[in-house]
Protein backbone atom coordinates (compact mmCIF):
# COMPACT_ATOMS: atom_id res chain seq x y z
CA UNK A 1 0.00 0.00 0.00
CA UNK A 2 1.07 3.57 -0.62
CA UNK A 3 1.63 5.67 2.48
CA UNK A 4 2.39 9.38 2.43
CA UNK A 5 4.46 10.76 5.27
CA UNK A 6 6.06 14.07 6.04
CA UNK A 7 9.29 12.42 7.23
CA UNK A 8 11.70 14.71 9.08
CA UNK A 9 10.23 17.60 7.15
CA UNK A 10 10.27 16.08 3.67
CA UNK A 11 7.23 14.66 1.91
CA UNK A 12 7.74 10.99 0.95
CA UNK A 13 5.61 8.28 -0.60
CA UNK A 14 6.43 4.82 0.68
CA UNK A 15 5.27 1.48 -0.65
CA UNK A 16 4.68 -0.60 2.49
CA UNK A 17 3.10 -3.91 3.41
CA UNK A 18 -0.35 -3.13 4.82
CA UNK A 19 0.50 -4.97 8.06
CA UNK A 20 3.89 -3.26 8.48
CA UNK A 21 4.69 -1.29 11.59
CA UNK A 22 6.09 2.22 11.36
CA UNK A 23 9.36 1.13 13.00
CA UNK A 24 10.32 -1.32 10.26
CA UNK A 25 9.32 1.15 7.55
CA UNK A 26 11.55 3.83 9.09
CA UNK A 27 14.48 1.48 9.43
CA UNK A 28 14.04 0.38 5.79
CA UNK A 29 14.38 4.07 4.92
CA UNK A 30 17.81 4.03 6.56
CA UNK A 31 16.56 5.81 9.67
CA UNK A 32 18.02 3.37 12.19
CA UNK A 33 17.98 5.62 15.26
CA UNK A 34 14.72 4.05 16.41
CA UNK A 35 15.41 0.49 17.57
CA UNK A 36 13.24 -2.48 18.37
CA UNK A 37 13.84 -3.21 22.05
CA UNK A 38 10.84 -4.88 23.62
CA UNK A 39 8.50 -4.72 20.62
CA UNK A 40 5.50 -4.17 22.90
CA UNK A 41 5.54 -0.44 23.63
CA UNK A 42 7.21 -0.62 27.02
CA UNK A 43 10.91 0.21 26.59
CA UNK A 44 10.88 3.39 24.50
CA UNK A 45 13.83 2.53 22.23
CA UNK A 46 11.59 3.01 19.16
CA UNK A 47 10.16 6.40 20.21
CA UNK A 48 9.36 8.78 17.35
CA UNK A 49 7.03 11.76 17.05
CA UNK A 50 3.83 11.44 15.02
CA UNK A 51 2.14 14.79 14.52
CA UNK A 52 4.28 16.08 17.37
CA UNK A 53 3.39 13.42 19.95
CA UNK A 54 5.83 10.72 21.08
CA UNK A 55 4.64 7.22 20.17
CA UNK A 56 6.04 3.68 20.11
CA UNK A 57 6.73 3.08 16.43
CA UNK A 58 6.86 -0.69 17.12
CA UNK A 59 3.13 -0.65 17.95
CA UNK A 60 1.90 1.75 15.30
CA UNK A 61 0.80 0.24 12.00
CA UNK A 62 2.10 2.34 9.15
CA UNK A 63 -1.43 2.62 7.78
CA UNK A 64 -2.28 4.69 10.87
CA UNK A 65 0.37 7.23 9.89
CA UNK A 66 -0.81 8.04 6.36
CA UNK A 67 -0.70 11.81 5.95
CA UNK A 68 1.10 12.32 9.26
CA UNK A 69 4.28 14.21 10.13
CA UNK A 70 6.87 11.81 11.52
CA UNK A 71 10.02 13.03 13.25
CA UNK A 72 12.69 10.50 14.17
CA UNK A 73 15.80 10.78 16.33
CA UNK A 74 17.66 11.83 13.17
CA UNK A 75 15.17 14.67 12.73
CA UNK A 76 15.46 15.74 16.36
CA UNK A 77 19.25 15.75 15.88
CA UNK A 78 18.73 18.36 13.15
CA UNK A 79 16.04 20.36 14.97
CA UNK A 80 17.61 20.39 18.43
CA UNK A 81 21.23 19.23 18.35
CA UNK A 82 21.77 20.66 21.83
CA UNK A 83 19.76 17.81 23.40
CA UNK A 84 22.04 15.03 22.19
CA UNK A 85 25.00 17.26 23.07
CA UNK A 86 23.66 17.59 26.61
CA UNK A 87 23.34 13.80 26.90
CA UNK A 88 26.96 13.53 25.80
CA UNK A 89 28.22 16.29 28.10
CA UNK A 90 26.37 14.97 31.16
CA UNK A 91 26.95 11.26 30.58
CA UNK A 92 23.28 10.60 29.93
CA UNK A 93 24.22 7.42 28.10
CA UNK A 94 26.49 4.45 28.34
CA UNK A 95 25.72 1.70 25.81
CA UNK A 96 23.52 4.04 23.76
CA UNK A 97 20.75 1.62 22.73
CA UNK A 98 18.03 3.63 24.48
CA UNK A 99 19.52 7.04 23.68
CA UNK A 100 17.70 7.90 20.43
CA UNK A 101 14.39 7.22 22.19
CA UNK A 102 15.48 9.18 25.25
CA UNK A 103 16.44 12.17 23.09
CA UNK A 104 13.15 12.11 21.15
CA UNK A 105 11.15 11.93 24.39
CA UNK A 106 13.25 14.70 25.95
CA UNK A 107 12.62 16.86 22.87
CA UNK A 108 8.85 16.28 23.16
CA UNK A 109 8.94 17.10 26.87
CA UNK A 110 10.90 20.33 26.33
CA UNK A 111 8.49 21.39 23.58
CA UNK A 112 5.60 20.82 26.01
CA UNK A 113 7.37 22.57 28.88
CA UNK A 114 10.71 24.30 28.19
CA UNK A 115 11.58 24.23 31.91
CA UNK A 116 10.14 21.05 33.45
CA UNK A 117 10.66 20.36 37.13
CA UNK A 118 12.16 17.15 38.45
CA UNK A 119 8.75 15.51 39.02
CA UNK A 120 7.62 16.27 35.47
CA UNK A 121 10.87 14.95 33.99
CA UNK A 122 10.51 11.76 36.03
CA UNK A 123 6.89 11.11 35.08
CA UNK A 124 7.24 12.07 31.40
CA UNK A 125 10.41 10.02 30.91
CA UNK A 126 9.21 7.04 32.97
CA UNK A 127 8.42 5.05 29.83
CA UNK A 128 11.96 5.26 28.42
CA UNK A 129 13.92 2.46 30.04
CA UNK A 130 17.70 2.58 30.48
CA UNK A 131 19.60 -0.37 31.93
CA UNK A 132 22.97 1.44 32.21
CA UNK A 133 22.81 4.91 33.67
CA UNK A 134 20.48 4.65 36.65
CA UNK A 135 18.58 7.64 35.18
CA UNK A 136 20.13 10.41 37.33
CA UNK A 137 22.48 11.44 34.52
CA UNK A 138 19.60 11.37 32.02
CA UNK A 139 17.64 13.78 34.21
CA UNK A 140 20.73 16.01 34.54
CA UNK A 141 21.12 15.94 30.74
CA UNK A 142 17.54 17.08 30.23
CA UNK A 143 17.89 19.83 32.84
CA UNK A 144 21.05 20.98 31.09
CA UNK A 145 19.31 20.96 27.70
CA UNK A 146 16.49 23.02 29.21
CA UNK A 147 18.92 25.57 30.62
CA UNK A 148 21.23 25.61 27.63
Amino acid at each position, binding site marked *: *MKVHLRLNGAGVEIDA*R*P*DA*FLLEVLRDQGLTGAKEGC*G*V*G*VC*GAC*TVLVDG*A*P*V*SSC*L*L*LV*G*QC*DGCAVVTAEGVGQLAPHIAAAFSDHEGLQCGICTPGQVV*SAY*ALLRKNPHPGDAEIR*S*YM*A*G*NLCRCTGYASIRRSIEAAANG
Partner: protein
Amino acid sequence: MVEWQRPTKLDDAIAALASDGAVALGGGTSTALLMKQGMLSPSRIVTLRQIDGLRGVRPTPDGGLAIGAATTLTELADAVRSAYPALAACAEGIGNVRIRNVATVGGALAHADPAQDLPPMLLALDARLVLAGPAGQRTIPLDGFFTGYMETALQPGELIVRVDLPAPAGRSTYLKFTPRSQDDYATVGVACRVDGAQAVVALAGVAMTPIRLSVSADPQSAAEAAAAAADPLDDLRGSADYKRAMTAVCVRRALSGLLR
Protein backbone atom coordinates in the same frame (compact mmCIF):
# COMPACT_ATOMS: atom_id res chain seq x y z
CA MET B 1 -3.41 -9.22 3.11
CA VAL B 2 -5.18 -6.72 5.27
CA GLU B 3 -7.14 -3.96 3.57
CA TRP B 4 -7.38 -0.48 5.13
CA GLN B 5 -10.45 1.70 5.27
CA ARG B 6 -10.51 5.19 6.76
CA PRO B 7 -14.14 6.31 6.78
CA THR B 8 -14.96 9.85 7.85
CA LYS B 9 -18.63 9.09 8.61
CA LEU B 10 -19.93 6.78 11.31
CA ASP B 11 -22.38 5.09 8.90
CA ASP B 12 -19.53 4.28 6.52
CA ALA B 13 -17.55 2.75 9.39
CA ILE B 14 -20.48 0.54 10.36
CA ALA B 15 -20.87 -0.57 6.73
CA ALA B 16 -17.14 -1.30 6.50
CA LEU B 17 -17.25 -3.35 9.71
CA ALA B 18 -20.00 -5.60 8.35
CA SER B 19 -17.42 -7.69 6.49
CA ASP B 20 -16.06 -10.90 8.06
CA GLY B 21 -12.64 -10.37 9.63
CA ALA B 22 -13.04 -6.60 9.84
CA VAL B 23 -11.59 -4.95 12.95
CA ALA B 24 -12.27 -1.46 14.25
CA LEU B 25 -9.03 0.33 15.16
CA GLY B 26 -8.86 3.11 17.75
CA GLY B 27 -5.20 3.68 18.54
CA GLY B 28 -4.30 0.09 17.82
CA THR B 29 -2.07 -0.44 20.86
CA SER B 30 -3.95 -3.59 21.89
CA THR B 31 -4.82 -4.70 18.37
CA ALA B 32 -1.18 -4.41 17.30
CA LEU B 33 -0.09 -6.62 20.20
CA LEU B 34 -2.68 -9.25 19.29
CA MET B 35 -1.53 -9.13 15.65
CA LYS B 36 2.13 -9.47 16.69
CA GLN B 37 1.26 -12.46 18.86
CA GLY B 38 -0.58 -14.08 15.95
CA MET B 39 -3.86 -14.01 17.88
CA LEU B 40 -5.60 -11.68 15.43
CA SER B 41 -5.30 -11.57 11.64
CA PRO B 42 -7.82 -9.02 10.41
CA SER B 43 -8.75 -9.02 6.73
CA ARG B 44 -9.81 -5.39 7.00
CA ILE B 45 -8.83 -2.61 9.40
CA VAL B 46 -11.33 0.22 9.81
CA THR B 47 -9.68 3.22 11.48
CA LEU B 48 -11.91 5.38 13.66
CA ARG B 49 -9.80 8.39 14.66
CA GLN B 50 -10.74 10.45 11.59
CA ILE B 51 -14.52 10.01 12.00
CA ASP B 52 -16.46 13.22 12.59
CA GLY B 53 -17.63 13.49 16.18
CA LEU B 54 -15.85 10.43 17.56
CA ARG B 55 -13.00 12.43 19.10
CA GLY B 56 -13.03 14.84 21.97
CA VAL B 57 -14.81 15.46 25.24
CA ARG B 58 -17.73 17.84 25.65
CA PRO B 59 -20.00 18.81 28.54
CA THR B 60 -23.60 17.57 28.52
CA PRO B 61 -26.67 19.62 29.61
CA ASP B 62 -27.05 17.56 32.82
CA GLY B 63 -23.58 18.55 34.03
CA GLY B 64 -21.88 15.38 32.88
CA LEU B 65 -19.49 14.64 30.05
CA ALA B 66 -19.74 12.94 26.67
CA ILE B 67 -16.39 11.30 25.82
CA GLY B 68 -15.91 10.36 22.18
CA ALA B 69 -14.76 6.76 21.81
CA ALA B 70 -11.73 7.72 19.70
CA THR B 71 -10.47 10.21 22.30
CA THR B 72 -6.93 9.30 23.37
CA LEU B 73 -6.02 8.76 27.01
CA THR B 74 -3.85 11.90 26.90
CA GLU B 75 -6.78 13.93 25.56
CA LEU B 76 -9.07 12.38 28.18
CA ALA B 77 -6.76 13.24 31.08
CA ASP B 78 -6.38 16.84 29.90
CA ALA B 79 -10.14 17.26 29.47
CA VAL B 80 -11.29 15.86 32.84
CA ARG B 81 -8.57 17.12 35.17
CA SER B 82 -10.77 19.63 37.02
CA ALA B 83 -14.19 17.92 36.99
CA TYR B 84 -13.12 14.26 37.38
CA PRO B 85 -9.60 14.37 38.88
CA ALA B 86 -9.60 10.66 39.79
CA LEU B 87 -10.34 9.76 36.17
CA ALA B 88 -7.52 12.01 34.99
CA ALA B 89 -5.08 10.44 37.47
CA CYS B 90 -6.25 6.94 36.49
CA ALA B 91 -5.74 7.69 32.78
CA GLU B 92 -2.28 9.13 33.45
CA GLY B 93 -1.27 5.97 35.30
CA ILE B 94 -1.85 3.78 32.24
CA GLY B 95 1.18 2.49 30.33
CA ASN B 96 3.45 5.38 29.43
CA VAL B 97 3.13 8.69 27.61
CA ARG B 98 3.57 7.02 24.19
CA ILE B 99 0.74 4.57 24.83
CA ARG B 100 -1.53 7.31 26.22
CA ASN B 101 -0.91 9.45 23.11
CA VAL B 102 -2.32 6.69 20.92
CA ALA B 103 -4.63 4.40 22.93
CA THR B 104 -8.30 5.40 22.92
CA VAL B 105 -11.08 5.27 25.50
CA GLY B 106 -13.31 3.13 23.29
CA GLY B 107 -10.45 0.80 22.46
CA ALA B 108 -9.67 0.25 26.14
CA LEU B 109 -13.28 -0.74 26.78
CA ALA B 110 -13.76 -2.90 23.68
CA HIS B 111 -10.49 -4.75 24.39
CA ALA B 112 -12.03 -5.80 27.72
CA ASP B 113 -8.84 -7.02 29.34
CA PRO B 114 -9.88 -7.34 33.01
CA ALA B 115 -6.48 -6.07 34.19
CA GLN B 116 -6.99 -2.63 32.60
CA ASP B 117 -7.46 0.46 34.76
CA LEU B 118 -10.02 2.49 32.84
CA PRO B 119 -12.96 0.02 33.01
CA PRO B 120 -13.27 -0.04 36.83
CA MET B 121 -12.77 3.73 37.05
CA LEU B 122 -15.57 4.33 34.55
CA LEU B 123 -17.74 1.72 36.32
CA ALA B 124 -17.30 3.59 39.60
CA LEU B 125 -18.37 6.81 37.84
CA ASP B 126 -21.57 5.10 36.55
CA ALA B 127 -20.62 5.48 32.89
CA ARG B 128 -23.03 4.59 30.11
CA LEU B 129 -22.04 3.57 26.59
CA VAL B 130 -23.56 4.67 23.32
CA LEU B 131 -23.11 1.89 20.75
CA ALA B 132 -23.89 1.98 17.04
CA GLY B 133 -24.22 -0.87 14.61
CA PRO B 134 -26.22 -2.26 11.71
CA ALA B 135 -29.36 -2.35 13.91
CA GLY B 136 -29.02 1.30 14.92
CA GLN B 137 -27.90 3.09 18.04
CA ARG B 138 -28.42 2.00 21.67
CA THR B 139 -27.32 3.18 25.10
CA ILE B 140 -26.39 0.69 27.82
CA PRO B 141 -24.85 0.95 31.29
CA LEU B 142 -21.14 0.08 31.34
CA ASP B 143 -22.03 -2.32 34.16
CA GLY B 144 -23.00 -5.42 32.21
CA PHE B 145 -20.95 -4.54 29.11
CA PHE B 146 -18.16 -6.91 30.10
CA THR B 147 -19.54 -10.41 29.58
CA GLY B 148 -16.41 -12.54 29.92
CA TYR B 149 -12.63 -12.59 29.58
CA MET B 150 -12.00 -10.08 26.76
CA GLU B 151 -15.65 -10.45 25.76
CA THR B 152 -18.26 -7.71 25.63
CA ALA B 153 -21.89 -7.04 24.80
CA LEU B 154 -20.85 -5.57 21.43
CA GLN B 155 -22.73 -7.30 18.63
CA PRO B 156 -21.00 -8.17 15.32
CA GLY B 157 -20.39 -4.97 13.39
CA GLU B 158 -21.18 -2.79 16.38
CA LEU B 159 -18.80 -0.18 17.78
CA ILE B 160 -18.57 2.18 20.73
CA VAL B 161 -19.49 5.75 19.80
CA ARG B 162 -19.05 7.47 23.13
CA VAL B 163 -18.94 7.15 26.91
CA ASP B 164 -21.43 9.28 28.85
CA LEU B 165 -20.64 10.27 32.43
CA PRO B 166 -23.22 11.69 34.81
CA ALA B 167 -22.39 14.92 36.66
CA PRO B 168 -19.62 14.39 39.25
CA ALA B 169 -21.07 13.08 42.52
CA GLY B 170 -19.13 12.42 45.70
CA ARG B 171 -15.38 11.81 45.78
CA SER B 172 -13.48 9.27 43.74
CA THR B 173 -10.08 7.65 43.55
CA TYR B 174 -8.20 4.90 41.74
CA LEU B 175 -5.61 2.80 43.51
CA LYS B 176 -3.33 0.71 41.32
CA PHE B 177 -1.36 -1.96 43.14
CA THR B 178 1.71 -2.88 41.07
CA PRO B 179 4.18 -4.82 43.21
CA ARG B 180 6.32 -6.04 40.28
CA SER B 181 7.15 -2.82 38.46
CA GLN B 182 5.48 0.55 38.23
CA ASP B 183 4.58 0.22 34.56
CA ASP B 184 3.01 -3.24 34.96
CA TYR B 185 -0.68 -3.97 34.68
CA ALA B 186 -2.35 -3.81 38.08
CA THR B 187 -2.15 -6.91 40.24
CA VAL B 188 -5.21 -5.39 41.87
CA GLY B 189 -6.86 -2.16 40.72
CA VAL B 190 -9.50 -0.48 42.89
CA ALA B 191 -11.75 2.39 41.84
CA CYS B 192 -13.91 3.90 44.59
CA ARG B 193 -16.54 6.61 44.69
CA VAL B 194 -18.00 7.70 48.00
CA ASP B 195 -21.27 9.64 48.10
CA GLY B 196 -22.57 10.11 51.65
CA ALA B 197 -22.79 6.78 53.47
CA GLN B 198 -22.75 4.81 50.22
CA ALA B 199 -19.83 3.81 48.05
CA VAL B 200 -19.26 2.20 44.70
CA VAL B 201 -16.22 -0.07 44.47
CA ALA B 202 -15.01 -1.43 41.13
CA LEU B 203 -12.13 -3.85 40.72
CA ALA B 204 -9.53 -4.70 38.06
CA GLY B 205 -7.38 -7.79 37.85
CA VAL B 206 -9.30 -10.03 40.23
CA ALA B 207 -11.85 -11.77 37.99
CA MET B 208 -12.57 -12.61 34.35
CA THR B 209 -14.23 -9.20 34.03
CA PRO B 210 -14.10 -5.93 35.94
CA ILE B 211 -16.45 -6.09 38.94
CA ARG B 212 -18.71 -3.30 40.24
CA LEU B 213 -20.19 -3.34 43.77
CA SER B 214 -22.51 -0.95 45.60
CA VAL B 215 -21.51 -1.07 49.25
CA SER B 216 -21.58 0.86 52.50
CA ALA B 217 -18.80 3.43 52.71
CA ASP B 218 -17.39 1.76 55.83
CA PRO B 219 -13.88 0.72 54.70
CA GLN B 220 -13.79 -2.56 56.63
CA SER B 221 -17.15 -3.88 55.45
CA ALA B 222 -16.49 -2.69 51.88
CA ALA B 223 -13.13 -4.46 51.95
CA GLU B 224 -14.77 -7.70 53.07
CA ALA B 225 -17.48 -7.41 50.40
CA ALA B 226 -14.89 -6.78 47.69
CA ALA B 227 -12.71 -9.71 48.75
CA ALA B 228 -15.79 -11.95 48.74
CA ALA B 229 -16.73 -10.77 45.22
CA ALA B 230 -13.20 -11.22 43.84
CA ASP B 231 -12.59 -14.42 41.90
CA PRO B 232 -8.93 -14.13 40.90
CA LEU B 233 -6.70 -16.58 39.06
CA ASP B 234 -3.20 -17.72 40.02
CA ASP B 235 -0.83 -16.12 37.54
CA LEU B 236 2.51 -14.34 37.25
CA ARG B 237 1.14 -11.40 39.28
CA GLY B 238 0.38 -13.56 42.29
CA SER B 239 -1.71 -16.38 43.68
CA ALA B 240 -5.48 -16.17 43.91
CA ASP B 241 -5.27 -16.03 47.72
CA TYR B 242 -2.75 -13.18 47.59
CA LYS B 243 -4.84 -11.16 45.15
CA ARG B 244 -7.98 -11.67 47.23
CA ALA B 245 -6.17 -10.56 50.37
CA MET B 246 -4.72 -7.53 48.59
CA THR B 247 -8.16 -6.67 47.22
CA ALA B 248 -9.33 -6.16 50.79
CA VAL B 249 -6.21 -4.16 51.68
CA CYS B 250 -6.49 -1.92 48.61
CA VAL B 251 -10.22 -1.27 49.05
CA ARG B 252 -9.69 -0.37 52.71
CA ARG B 253 -6.82 1.98 51.81
CA ALA B 254 -8.67 3.61 48.93
CA LEU B 255 -11.86 4.20 50.90
CA SER B 256 -10.04 5.33 54.05
CA GLY B 257 -8.14 7.83 51.93
CA LEU B 258 -11.37 9.24 50.52
CA LEU B 259 -13.01 9.50 53.95
CA ARG B 260 -10.03 11.14 55.65
